[in-house]
């Protein structure tokens, strides 16, 4: 496997270092060839920079990709926004040589050149496509049989599909496949692909942000979900922090928000403490308690059977 740099983005190191902890823990456990690279900046955030100065948005993303190009590494990110922004700019420049030339004329003065050689992948499709279900199964010590775990893709893991090509943008499967491999029972939700709505908090519309979070959390509560799994710091912020704020005002949901790397970490034998899961604002304890209280022997036999039936070994 080609060496890759983890593009941490701004939100995880600034607000959620514990998500960096679980990500590193999992990457190390799989002995993956990753390293930290000096020189990255904000990807930059599309809703913020592209709305004010589209040229600067492209220049900044192109420079980040050029850093990876110069280091000779691919890029993997646990943030959907970073991957989507970088990929959108990469696709635009790769298909528009004149624009790439203009961008490079500026980048040259900062000592860089955009080539677009680095592959850019989000962590979920990365685990699905490049690590694979079989390897995950090899390392798995515990499964989630009997646990109802809802999945939230995060819009920018899969869209815009012309730039990402990561999964079907309207009917994605990869995150679901990974959860199925971990033995989780899926939760059918009408609002499964609905945007989390965190963007509204960034434009001073907090009540509207809460309103969108509430719609999804209410549905999950009525479906009896034990947890919601995400793999985007913005979605995590929306469902963990904003759920906490609503609960403080008396609205109870009780849906723990679990990062994909935390769930995977638990499955391969790390403890919630080792994964720093006590840092969430909405407690993960009800989930952990129910999970640890299951009859596990029966669960693992059943999951072997179900996985064979589903044909996921062939992926």
């Amino acid at each position, binding site marked *: 496997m080609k060496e890759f740099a983890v593009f941490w983005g701004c939100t995880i190191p600034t607000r959620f270092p514990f998500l960096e902890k679980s990500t590193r823990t999992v990457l190390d456990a799989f002995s993956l060839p990753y390293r930290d690279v000096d020189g990255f900046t904000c990807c930059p955030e599309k809703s913020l920079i592209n709305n*004010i100065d589209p040229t600067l948005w492209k220049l900044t993303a192109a420079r980040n990709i050029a850093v990876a190009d110069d280091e000779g590494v691919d890029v993997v990110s646990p943030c959907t926004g970073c991957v989507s922004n970088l990929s959108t700019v990469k696709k635009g420049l790769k298909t528009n040589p004149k624009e790439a030339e203009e961008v490079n004329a500026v980048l040259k003065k900062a000592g860089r050149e955009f080539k677009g050689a680095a592959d850019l992948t989000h962590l979920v499709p990365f685990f699905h496509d490049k690590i694979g279900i079989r390897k995950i199964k090899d390392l798995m010590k515990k499964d989630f049989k009997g646990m109802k775990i809802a999945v939230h893709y995060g819009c920018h893991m899969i869209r815009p599909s012309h730039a990402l090509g990561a999964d079907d943008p309207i009917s994605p499967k990869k995150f679901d496949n990974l959860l199925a491999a971990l033995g989780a029972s899926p939760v059918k939700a009408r609002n499964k692909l609905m945007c989390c709505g965190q963007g509204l908090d960034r434009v001073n519309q907090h009540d509207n942000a809460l309103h969108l979070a509430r719609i999804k959390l209410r549905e999950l509560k009525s479906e009896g979900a034990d947890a919601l799994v995400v793999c985007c710091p913005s979605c995590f912020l929306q469902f963990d922090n904003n759920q906490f704020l609503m609960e403080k005002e008396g609205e109870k949901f009780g849906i723990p928000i679990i990062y994909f790397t935390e769930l995977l970490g638990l499955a391969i034998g790390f403890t919630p403490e080792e994964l720093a899961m006590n840092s969430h604002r909405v407690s993960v304890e009800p989930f952990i308690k129910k999970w640890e209280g299951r009859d596990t022997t029966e669960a693992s036999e059943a999951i072997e059977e179900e996985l064979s039936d589903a044909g996921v070994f062939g992926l």
Partner: protein
Amino acid sequence: MQESLDFNLLKMCADCGACYEICPSSLHLDGYDPRAVIKDILKGEHEKWLTSETIWQCLECHYCLEMCYQHYGFESAMTALRRLAASKGHFPPQLKKGWDLFIKSSRLGDPAMPARKKLGLPAPAKSGVDEFAAMLEAYKESRDQ
């Protein structure tokens, strides 16, 4: 507006509305009606939207782009209006705060050092702030020429 948007596509957009079924803001935020905005753009009456909350309610989830048979969607119209609004100084205060931080530091925040230490995380990689500043200067020069 004619410079930044394809009015022929927008005309079809104004009559279509296929993406109302999947647009989270159209479905769930009272008063969010992109076709009303698009009809005003086509009439040349977009000015009134520049100071509205509506244009910032597009979540940029790109769902409409995927559903749109022209791969155009409401989002393109909202983005054009947001850029015009921003160029006239109309934007949510939080957006301005984020922009200022980005220009100054090249990032939207610094790594949380005490928490990193507690979690046993390695020292964070160096940011590209100096190179970013040089790029910003070069960009300003090329723009002014």
